[in-house]
């Protein structure tokens, strides 16, 4: 019995040892109001792991702060941070698989409110102070919300799609009309009258338009990814389109090579230069009549995942997600393609948002 007692005496206290070491509830104070401009980076994180983060980069100081949402609020941003949009003094972050859009203070990163119970929010676009649209994946509706009350007020039913293949993405507005590209297993641009919240027209483009911008000549630009091999929806060469939004007709189609994977169509601040990813980083003036022969930045052996252009000075920022399970890296280039800076952010940096003071 003595031996037993001795044995238990040794074991039991050690079994009690240890708890998970958690640090909770520490809210950090930020104040970025002094910096003239800033770049927010939405890091998607890994799907189903809830490790999306928000990074903030000060171009003037060449300084990055990572996980600013968590550090400011002592809670996670969520699962798959898809995009961020700024309206006045607030930033609105769509967190896709958390069914939420957070509103944060742009200088302190503190949450000021949230819109919940969304299906799978992708992008938010403000029609007015008290009305915004939120596009969705896996839903055939665009949600109408009141951003002041953080509540859903209605829906716009999109024709020709079900919940299962529903996909509405980026939005641009010209006058009272809003245009939205439909991406996953879709091939259309929808035109919505923002005064009536009704879809008034739709335009068929190529398979899976990934992004949508409005250039300085008030022309819509979209780029398709062409689908994928063996897709029952089809697989074709992707293309870049110029669309007249008033006539709502395709003016020009620039065909890319079959098998190319273009994405992330962007404009510079003056709206006269297009940028996109297609292994390399490509750039083209909006009045060009043919695609460029050489890339703006050649492929360097990695898969670029995100792209933005500083609206103030035309500097180009490219996101490298590396292996998608480590902190991605952002490369900052001059308008001439010279590397100016690079910095690590969060997992899978996919979207950017510029803050201009």
């Amino acid at each position, binding site marked *: 019995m003595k031996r037993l007692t001795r044995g238990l005496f040794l074991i039991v206290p050690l079994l009690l040892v240890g708890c998970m070491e958690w640090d909770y509830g520490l809210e950090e104070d930020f104040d970025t109001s002094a910096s003239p401009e800033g770049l927010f980076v939405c890091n998607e994180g890994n799907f189903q792991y809830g490790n999306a983060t928000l990074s903030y980069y000060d171009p003037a100081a060449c300084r990055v702060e*990572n996980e600013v949402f968590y550090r400011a609020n002592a*809670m996670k941003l969520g*699962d798959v941070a898809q995009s961020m949009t700024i309206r006045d003094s607030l930033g609105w972050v769509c967190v896709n698989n958390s069914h939420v859009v957070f509103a944060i203070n742009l200088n302190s990163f503190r949450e000021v409110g949230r819109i919940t119970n969304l299906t799978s929010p992708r992008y938010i676009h403000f029609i007015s102070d008290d009305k915004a649209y939120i596009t969705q994946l896996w839903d055939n509706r665009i949600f109408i919300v009141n951003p002041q009350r953080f509540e859903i007020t209605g829906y716009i039913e999109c024709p020709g799609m079900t919940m299962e293949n529903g996909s509405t993405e980026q939005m641009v507005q010209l006058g009272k009309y809003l245009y939205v590209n439909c991406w996953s297993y879709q091939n259309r641009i929808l035109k919505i009258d923002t005064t009536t919240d009704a879809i008034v027209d739709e335009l068929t483009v190529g398979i899976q338009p990934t992004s949508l911008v409005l250039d300085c000549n008030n022309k819509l630009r979209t780029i398709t990814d062409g689908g994928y091999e063996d897709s029952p929806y089809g697989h074709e060469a992707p293309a870049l389109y110029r669309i007249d939004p008033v006539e709502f007709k395709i003016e020009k189609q620039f065909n890319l090579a079959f098998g190319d994977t273009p994405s992330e169509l962007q404009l510079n601040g003056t709206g006269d230069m297009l940028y996109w990813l297609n292994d390399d980083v490509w750039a083209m003036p909006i009045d060009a009549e043919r695609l460029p022969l050489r890339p703006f930045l050649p492929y360097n052996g990695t898969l670029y995942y995100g792209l933005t252009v500083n609206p103030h000075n035309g500097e180009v920022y490219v996101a490298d997600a590396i292996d998608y399970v480590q902190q991605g890296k952002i490369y900052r280039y001059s308008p001439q393609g010279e590397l100016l800076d690079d910095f690590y952010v969060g997992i899978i940096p996919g979207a950017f948002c510029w803050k201009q003071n």
Partner: protein
Amino acid sequence: MRRAFLNIVFLFLPSIIWGQQSDNTWSSRGITIRSVEVSGKRPMKEIGTSTTTFDSLTLKENIALSMADVLTYSTPIFVKNHGRATLSTVAFRGTSASHTQVSWNGMKINNPMLGSTDFSMIPSYFIDDASLLHGTSSVGETGGGLGGAVRLATTPASANGFGLQYTQGIGSFKTFDEFLRLTYGNKNWQVSTRAVYSSSPNEYKYRNRDKKENIYDENMNIVSQYYPIERNRSGSYKDLHILQEVYYNTGRGDRLGLNAWYINSNRELAMLTTDYGDDTKFDNRSREQTFRGVLSWDHLRSDWKVSAKAGYIHTQMAYDYKRDIGNGIMAHMTRSRSRVNTIYGQVDGEYYIGNKWLFTANLSLHQHFVTSRDKNIIRQDGGKAIVGYRKGRVELSGAVSAKWRPVERLGISLVMREEMYGKEWTPIIPALFVEGVLSPIGNLTAKASVSRNFRFPSLNDLYFLPGGNPDLRKESGWSYDAGLSFAVGRKGVYALSGSATWFDSYIKDWIIWLPTVKGFFSPRNVKDVHAYGVELQAKLDVALTRELALALNGTFSWTPSINQGTPMSAADRSVGKQLPYIPLYSSAITGRLSWRKWAFLYKWCYYSERYTMSSNDTTLTGKLPTYFMNNISLEKSFSFSWADLSLQGTINNLFNEEYLSVLSRPMPGINFEIFVSITPKWGRHK
């Protein structure tokens, strides 16, 4: 690190202390304890292998355990657990879930679409014989086990006449577990029917520190925030398992067997901690119906044996993700269906020449037919279409081996295996095993082995739409093992055994699913991995008095699993780092104290921090700290003239730890379950 080291030292200290004591008074007591086996010579079939065998007490110590729970507390394997009664996969020796091959009564049960096995769907109540074949040791059983293999089997019940056992379990979170076993047996026949039904809304509470609740004023300004206490939302489950077995033993060396296992599972997929959806508006659910059947024939003679098996697996899986679109109608966001049919056949032969040579051969065939329908879409022409694939694949695996024991203390075994998946063959897969008894005192035995191995991509890896990559190469690897083991004891008094094994594996062309710019994932051969480490195991059974027995079982493993691939870009910081979600250290200990008809069980496990990033950066949002888990149970048996009864109470997560196995997947705090078991003594009244 320091804490982990201390835990490890103290984990084994008691065993060492007891191991050094050879008290003669024990032998004079003449008592019988649970399992005191000190083997003088290992079976020739196991020459040089590193095997962990679970005894029946381990498998049945808590009737409600899944094999995921058993592996967690009784082996060095890391079980990646997504929550209570949810997907549980294993990382064996620093490898991934698909690198562990799992067989049930000889038939491979890894899902051919995924390559992995969900151990939460295997109730330990249905398993009578289980063993782990570590690393190289799996080559004698099957190919593709770059980490190893888990061998599960049922055995005849040894019943005499009719028998019945019924157990009812009631636990926290409205958990109900019911177990029934009917047996019939005579000299030739053994028939057994087992059924398990488990259900729970599974709504355990936890403090959600990944989100905060906001309190707004009338102008929608946040005036206060707090971490909410939430329920595990949408985590309910209802699992039914039925197992029918029939064995016929001619008594002249032939045995026929039938095993048929039916599963009907309906499980919700619990919401993440970071989910702001209303759980009443979403339904995220997977359902599975699986039938597995094996017919077997064994023909035994004094120096040779042949056996043949034929089997069939049918699996239907449905995944539905729905949401309320505002009118109470739940509309599908995802409606995924898959169907797998597998035909299986295997022949085995063994032939002894004297007691020095054993030759074995086996050939197995698995023919899979898979239909995957992942998404319903509307085509450009307005017609309907389904995104999915339909494929078949034949998997042939054959091996021959020669085992030689030239002298009593030395054994050598050579295995040659070859596999064909589809039309692609592996090169010859060799495995060489050597073992020698260094000292008969304490049965001190040294063993070493080396093997090559290959794992073919799963059917989803190759064909899943979108993303499947038919150009994938098979993963390949070399593994090396070396170790020492000992066993000492005194019959009926105590038994102490232990082993230390070093292993070293190189795996090339590791397959990983990565996102693409088109919004879906696609697998690629991206990594070369060096997985190595040490596994320690110790086991002690001791009779402390005539009525008091103690059984201790401890394991520890150190498993660096290092990415040695080429950097994916200049910015890649993952090379030379530990793979994500594989702990560097893990340990488990189980202690059972039996006194008369009482039994007290203490289970403890430890996992070191798991990285969530390939670069091994630990960020605020990507942290999975070390955790320790403690479970206890107390059992009392009663024997009446008309029946045997037993009562068992268990406490899981004794210290109410907040812990995670996977990011954003909360695990339950302290919880309880009681079991009442009855075994009537029909026709055996005294």
